């Protein structure tokens, strides 16, 4: 009872727009290089629980499980499985940093997958023109998912609907929409060039892993050194204050939900490329939960105001390696789920302790 801090809603929001960094919040943007350095260190520090666990997991596997773990195959499996979670998780990080949540990302992955499959299977112009059709099968699904994301943002900003409810609408309807697009059928295809986004191996590394790293790099940079990043954190820290300080709250929120949608669309394409098929019932299933867990383990506070894109990467890798380690040690999938859930709570708990 000594610690009188509210649990629900009113989390302590830091005094400045970036409570995690060591520089005091200056009215103007800090020196770019200092900002980037603080970002890297600050992100790692906030995700330290996850980072520590990640190092331990890697060490454990290197010492006790080297034959299986230190192989290209194991690397590829882990990188492939974690890539879409990271891509979706980056968008989720931005949304959560503004104090929101996006439950619709798994459904948006399914919608993007359905749209792409229909384009790839179409025999009519312009869809059947070589390369143009393939390019459209990437651009259009991502834009469609982004448009739905923008719709989420409009519900949140225009109508003041709670983000969990606003995005619940598409969580419920989205998979239905995806199946309406494919008429409820599983759509299989074979487009080796197009499927490079899921099956390509440049330098022996899964293409989608590089894609995920690129997304992380761009987002981490944007959060640290751009005005947009500052705005996102300012809104999550104290929306009212941000509004009074002249932050274009509405536009920034629309943007983060749209970005979350775009990235979900990209992740959906990767997934159907891996499977050579689009199954609207399965693409992106439960990915919203994976992404939220990765964000939480990564040290981003769920009430907003603090965000670590690198932390989300670390969180996703940690969760992935916990599962991988348990499964290679012969634990059942069910046990792995229980342990993973426990690990999520412990990681969040450790961050809370450190934060207070």
């Amino acid at each position, binding site marked *: 009872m000594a610690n009188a801090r509210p649990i629900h*809603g009113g*989390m302590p929001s830091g005094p400045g727009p970036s409570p995690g960094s060591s520089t005091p919040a200056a009215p103007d943007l800090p020196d770019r290089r200092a900002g980037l350095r603080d970002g890297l260190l600050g992100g790692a520090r906030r995700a330290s629980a996850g980072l520590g666990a990640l190092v331990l997991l890697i060490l454990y596997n290197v010492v006790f499980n080297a034959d299986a773990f230190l192989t290209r195959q194991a690397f590829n499996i882990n990188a492939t499985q974690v890539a879409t979670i990271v891509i979706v998780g980056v968008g989720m990080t931005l949304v959560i940093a503004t104090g929101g949540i996006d439950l619709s990302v798994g459904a948006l992955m399914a919608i993007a997958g359905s749209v792409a499959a229909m384009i790839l299977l179409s025999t009519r112009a312009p869809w059947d023109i070589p390369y143009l059709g393939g390019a459209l099968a990437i651009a259009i699904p991502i834009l469609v998912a982004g448009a739905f994301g923008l719709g989420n943002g409009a519900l949140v900003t225009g109508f003041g609907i709670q983000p969990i409810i606003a995005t619940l609408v598409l969580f419920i309807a989205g998979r*239905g929409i995806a199946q*309406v697009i494919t008429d409820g059928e599983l759509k299989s295809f074979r487009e080796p060039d197009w499927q490079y986004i899921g099956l390509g191996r440049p330098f022996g590394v899964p293409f989608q892993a590089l894609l995920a790293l690129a997304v992380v790099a761009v987002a981490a940079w944007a959060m640290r050194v751009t005005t947009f990043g500052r705005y996102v954190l300012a809104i999550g820290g104290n929306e009212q204050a941000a509004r009074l300080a002249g932050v274009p709250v509405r536009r920034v929120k629309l943007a983060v939900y749209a970005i979350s949608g775009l990235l979900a669309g990209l992740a959906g394409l990767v997934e159907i490329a891996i499977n050579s098929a689009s199954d609207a019932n399965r693409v992106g299933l439960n990915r919203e939960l994976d992404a939220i867990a990765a964000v939480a383990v990564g040290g981003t506070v769920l009430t907003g105001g603090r965000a670590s894109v690198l932390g989300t990467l670390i969180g996703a890798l940690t969760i992935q390696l916990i599962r991988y380690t348990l499964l290679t040690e012969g634990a059942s*999938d069910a046990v792995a789920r229980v342990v993973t859930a426990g690990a999520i709570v412990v990681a969040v*708990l450790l961050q809370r302790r450190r934060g207070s």
Partner: protein
Amino acid sequence: MAATAPPLPASEPRADAQADRRAQLGSLVQRQGAILALGLTLLFGWWRYGDNGFTGSYNLTEALRYNAMFALIALGMTFVIMTGGIDLSVGAVAVIGSVLAARLSGEGVWVAIGGAVLAGVAVGLLNGGLIAAFRIQPFIVTLATLLAGRGLALILSGNATVSLSTDAFTNGFIELSSRNLGRVPLPAAIAAVAFVAGSVVLNLTRFGRHVLAFGGNEEAARLAGLPVSRTIVAVYALSGGLAGLAGAILAAQTFAGNPNEAVGWELSAIAAVVVGGTLLTGGLGSVWTTLVGVLLLGAIINMLNFESLDPYWQQVIRGLFLLVVVVLQSRLAGRRRSVA
């Protein structure tokens, strides 16, 4: 969950009476709008599907039997949401309850129900304990117990559907779902009793006052010396227990404990609470609006069954319906909050 409503004009002491009255009207519509919508929906169903048996006693009885499970879960969710929290674990808890009840179904009705409810309460205590003691956000804690609960259900079931014991068909267990009291199915009767009890607890007991008080402003409740931690733990235990009970009914209804059932029930329950008119920010609401929300969503789904629609169109329509309701709610709630 941080409130993200746009800034509302603070109610000044000299707010004119006209705005006040309009706000009260908005509040009334928000409170009673769901009942109105339910009435219109049933009327539409009677007109459109009456000849196909929508209003026939068979359809109504079976619809009530099915929706009673959602009603129980949504009741617990209402209490949780009134404290400003959220419980994402209820679907997983229901599945644990149904697997346990199926395993225990040979030992008698009360053992099976007791096992399911106790397991639910245990998960709820864990939720509430973690939230109250360590101040982790309800969303994260219950997300973790959702994931863990699904795993636990797989472990308890040995990764397969658990059939009821043969004794369950004679010792009264399946009657937990199949029995009718007059024309009312037993699950619906149980849900009705639970809602009456819930209403009494909320409005007439000190616990109920605490739930409403600190959902409105937890900090103020804490400073006023209310037992915030205890109330949180109790609310999540209640939600878990009701979800466990719903799970036992599910086992009796499907003759099995299937660890892969009840996917997304937590979100259906949240939708029912919101459709009914309880605000997610806590502090306001009534259990009866939740019951109306459950019946409304149930009626819509039931009517869709009369159309020979593909199931995926049903999902689209359910989503659209939720969209319309929350947009209307937000318009009306804005006025209401400016009064409160």
